[in-house]
């Protein structure tokens, strides 16, 4: 079973436990981004996490958006990159750019 399949399975298991769950997926990359397109991070409303969308540098910001999405916000596309001030703050030190799709599992 691939990593993405394992993560989807995990997300479904958390959902069955009655948790709220969000899924973040890398949908585009430019330059030297640490994780390829299709990489996933799943999060629940107790802060449990599995998988990754970067080497750890943007996870915090993604989790924050994931919380909003699992509380009912529509899915959203997040941009991270060296030209983006927010990304500088969260520190995408590799110099790459990534777009991450964040959605609720509902």
């Amino acid at each position, binding site marked *: *079973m*691939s990593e*993405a*399949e394992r993560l*989807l*399975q995990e*997300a*479904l298991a958390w*959902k069955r436990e009655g948790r709220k769950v969000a*899924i973040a*997926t890398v*949908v*585009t990359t430019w330059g030297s981004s640490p994780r*390829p*397109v*299709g990489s996933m991070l799943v999060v629940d409303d107790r802060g449990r996490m599995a998988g990754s969308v970067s080497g750890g540098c943007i996870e915090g910001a993604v989790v924050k958006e994931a919380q909003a999405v699992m509380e009912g916000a*529509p*899915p959203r*596309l997040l941009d991270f990159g060296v030209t983006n001030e927010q990304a500088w703050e969260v520190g995408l030190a590799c110099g790459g750019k990534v*777009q991450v*799709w964040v*959605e*609720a*599992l*509902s």
Partner: protein
Amino acid sequence: MKVALAERLLAAREAGRRACLLRFLKTGEEALVIEGELVVGPDLPDGVLDAIERAHRRDRSTTIETAAGPVFLQVFNPPLRLIVVGAVHIAQALVPMAALTGYAVTVIDPRRGFATAERFPNVSLLDAWPDEAMESLAPDLRTAVVTLTHDPKLDDPALDVALRSEAFYIGALGSKRTHAARLERLRALGHAPEALARIHGPAGLDIGAESPAEIAVSVLAQMTQVLRKEG
């Protein structure tokens, strides 16, 4: 993502089928395509099914531009397979390395004492003759075949079947001279020169590998190169 969609996707994968999960990044809509057929979601813009087929072949998820805005194609393929002919010393290094890289590995060797569970723990072992074993495994686009025995009686029948399959990588261990003789024999079996050119022989990237583990690294590196850069 809808729970029902995720469940349907995982069920398709469990049944050994290829699935592609689509996200319409402009509208938030989603769709599921299984083996090239739309099973859930809105009608797909022109060109999307072709793009899905390419993404499956390259085993690479991607975002494409369509008439409906950007659409993210997330590919869920069956695992890569590696068929190793010859349960030899190099195979003992190659098999665990390939498993780490994501390959489901099968080792074929009809000789007694070679393909044993002690030498190859947690691997699928076949002691049938290579032609028979290869026919039953039916190599496809996601399969690599590597022959390691140096013995024409074992390697040739396996290569014969591999050449008639869509295997993305075919490698044969042996010196340049051994390989030239091998090509001559395979030509006599009716394989055209352009088909024979699919065989990487001697198998592996030229990194000066000497030990069995180093040779395994060079072979696995070449498989990866063909998969990721030529697919």
